[in-house]
């Protein structure tokens, strides 16, 4: 029940802040003006979860992880060269959900061209281009984890930039 309440609270916040232009329509006319000025969280609050240590990663070999919870499978990848959104000393570590944002099939990583491929309907996503759908049926690019690396090489995930398949809130 606690979980449900959190989700519902988050959803209301979405309505107020997630769509910036909704303020008038969604915030409701009952709210006093001062209340509108209060900050509302536009997005869900993400846990900062340790996923792995840099030492656990081998270049171009996906490491299975889960984020924001154990029911949301993903991978960490060390690509060997800096990419947009990459973290770590080489700017080359990225993390993605591996559920295809079309129909939720498990994506398969192809190390030859560093792409995620969906065996269900042939969509594919570029691990080196922010999870951009190279070709396919999904209407969002692959959800990417917001990562942070601390001084010990510990890799933390602290957010996700797209809606993960199978959940109407990234945190359940």
């Amino acid at each position: 029940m606690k979980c449900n309440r959190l989700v519902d609270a988050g959803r209301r916040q979405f309505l107020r802040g997630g769509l910036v232009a909704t303020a008038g329509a969604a915030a409701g006319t009952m709210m006093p003006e001062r209340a509108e000025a209060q900050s509302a969280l536009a997005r869900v609050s993400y846990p900062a979860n340790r996923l792995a240590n840099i030492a656990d990663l081998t270049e171009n070999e996906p490491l299975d992880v889960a984020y924001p919870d154990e029911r949301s499978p993903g991978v960490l990848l060390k690509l060997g060269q800096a990419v947009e959104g990459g973290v770590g000393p080489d700017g080359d570590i990225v993390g993605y959900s591996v559920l295809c944002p079309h129909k939720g099939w498990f994506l398969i990583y192809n190390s030859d061209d560093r792409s995620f491929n969906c065996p269900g309907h042939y969509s594919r996503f570029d691990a080196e281009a922010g999870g951009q759908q190279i070709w396919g049926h999904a209407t969002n690019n692959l959800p990417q984890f917001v990562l942070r690396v601390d001084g010990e090489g510990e890799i933390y995930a602290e957010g996700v930039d797209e809606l993960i398949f199978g959940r109407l809130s990234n945190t359940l």
Partner: protein
Amino acid sequence: MTYKRQVDRLPIIPADATVHNSVCHYCIVGCGYKTYTWPMNKQGGTAPDENIFGVDLSQQQPQDSNAWYAPSMYNVVRQNGQDVHMVIKPDQDCVVNSGLASVRGARMAENHPSDVTGTQGHRLTDPLVWRYGTYNPTSWDDALDLVARVTARIVVENGEDDLVVSMFDHGGSGGGYENTWGTGKLYFESMKIKNVRIHNRPAYNSEVHATRDMGVSELNNAYEDAQLADTLVAWGCNPLECQTNYFLNHWIPNLQGMSSSRKAELIPDEDHPRARIIFIDPRRTVSINAAEQAAGADNVLHLPINSGTDLALANAIFTYVADQGWVDTDFIESHTKAEAEPRPALFPARGETDAEPGHLTSFQDALDANRMSIEEAAQLCGVPAEDIVTAAEWIAMPKENGARRRTMIGYEKGVIWNNDNYRTNGAIVNISLATGNIGRLGGGCVRMGGHQEGYVRPSAAHVGRPATYVDQLLISGNGGVHHVWDCNQYRTTLNATEFKRIYNRRTNMVKEAMDAAAGATREEQVEAIVNAIRQGGLFTVDVDIIHNEMGQRAHVVLPGAQTGEMNLTSMNGERRMRLAERYMDPPGRSRPDCLIAAGIAQHMERVLREMGEDDYADQFTGYDWETEEDAFMDGYHRNAHNGELVTYDRLRALGTNGFQEPAQRLEGETIVGTPRLYADGNFSSEDGRARFMAGPWRGLATPGKEEERARYPFLINNGRSNLNWQNWYLDQENDFVTDRWPYPFIEMHPDDMEARGLGAGDLVEVHNDNGATQAMVYPTETARPGETFMLFGAPRGVQGNIVGSGTNELIIPVYKQTWADIRKISDRPSVADGISFKSKEFRF
């Protein structure tokens, strides 16, 4: 940097949300969707009794779950004057798509205008009139009065041939039976407009005259036939990208062996070997790759023929199949024309007239005329002879138990927009007729189709055949008034460089005259416009949902509504008719096209009476429609075959599955349709017998193409991608789309890129004698050197700019056969930074 919506939760559809039947309005497949709307101040919850799905949404939902929707499927729209939440998601109970969404249809929600979320802010909301040197919003009455006064003057004084019309004739989107009837009634009943063209070609004609002349309607099978066929043939089509869920939900299961139980159930007394598929296409497409994954490479045959040689290939297969005795003799004797017709005098070079570029005749006569050896075809087509034999075997060699092979052929723009369209179309149908594969389970010889259909109009016989080449008529200075309905010839016509140059000049003449008459009375303004027309100017009225390039040349712009903003009926590629219900208000004061046509008619009637033309004015009566349903009842209900059985209420009850046209009868209130045509062997000809087509190979038949091929180093093959719908009229404002394709891509082999000093993403100019355009280089290992493929209809690079004016006898353009040179314009522009240039083919 890759576009991310940064949306990490969505409002939950409450259990009591309003549900509307919806049909994707993009491609011909017409996938079923459900649209859910609910008030802004309500929301569902995660508990099963709090949401429409009845499931616990606090849990991760499994693969293929129905209880999930993407951010692109959500929006806030206006409904009956109130903002509401809206989700448009694929319908798992629709037999067409079984819950699959394409990358087009899954964006329907965010491709509606929303004042709240800011989507599609470019939609037109009010009529616009060119006034004070720019476009100004005004009332319907003001705009329609100007339209009617100028139009009436010209048709009365110059005749109806000076009114030129470009109008859609499709279903889906802004089309549908309601709107084709509205426009059709205006131009073919109230008037007899002869100088008329369709949205994607420069004349008012069929793209598939040949199959119709043979007595075989082009949408003759059911989608289920693709699950039942022994062999599928994709001829000049790319179904994974262009008919996505038809391919994924009906072809792929057959190729995977998943439809075997259905085959055993419906066809119990035959062997059902593993399905095979043949692709005939100069290019290796993603469809071929997907088929290899599904069926195994051994069951996939790709014939990468030389551009425009399809006729030679079809005639060789036809000849070989007949010589092997693999034809269906009983079918030929019972259901096709028995006696040969005398050959036309100029045959084989020409048909009887330009209106009949082939010769309709008997099986034996066609076989004699079309005879083509495997070896000769191999030479012409540039593919191995043994592969052509394999294709013939897969199409027609009897199965092990002696049963005839069930083969379905689907063809589309690779045949239609190509060399000798008429004869090639006929030659493909010959194969299906000879093997008895029309009207049969697992058979069919069908267009794959682009958009849905929705055609019921008064007779267009007065247009004639061959029809007027309207673009050339406009280019040569003819016509005085141009009414444009949802067409953008700036992006989707041939010879576009010249067309735009002339069109800009002629419409500017009228704009300048209007500017010079600023402050004048309406009568004086009309006089100024008519004078400009007499000097060679063109007065343009543009009806559309956005202010596109045609609209920017127009003098009056009228805002239309599209699917979901009005009730709309259409049929898909298996003639499946549905009512796509209205779920939101059209933006601003925009209206359904049928009601705009009615408004023009009513103003024409009024103005003509003022002019003392009472008899003519009387022709513009009968438009007292309050709603689109009134137009449907006036049009489809009264005029379609068995249309009197079809009403909105009956369609609504049939949901997203509808019925397959034509309606046969009612069972209670339920319409019973027709799954496949010609199941009784009675074809669409006077005697009920189909015709074969005598049409031998005659080289590149389009004027100018042979010279162009000799002169330029690159074939600029072209077509669609799955991501972009038509000319991007909505996609151009969709960030997900423009992030992927900021420019149209041109697929090039790496060796060709190296030879021209090009890198991935470089901007290039593609140029020839016809004009020039631009594209972004996409390295493609599977492209053949010297053969490129460019995305068609894109806003930032119009392929039609470099297509010559030559057409076939029936004024069908030959976009696919374009040759040009390529030069670098610049290094990769910043908008293309960070995008992927990897292969589009799925790889394990």
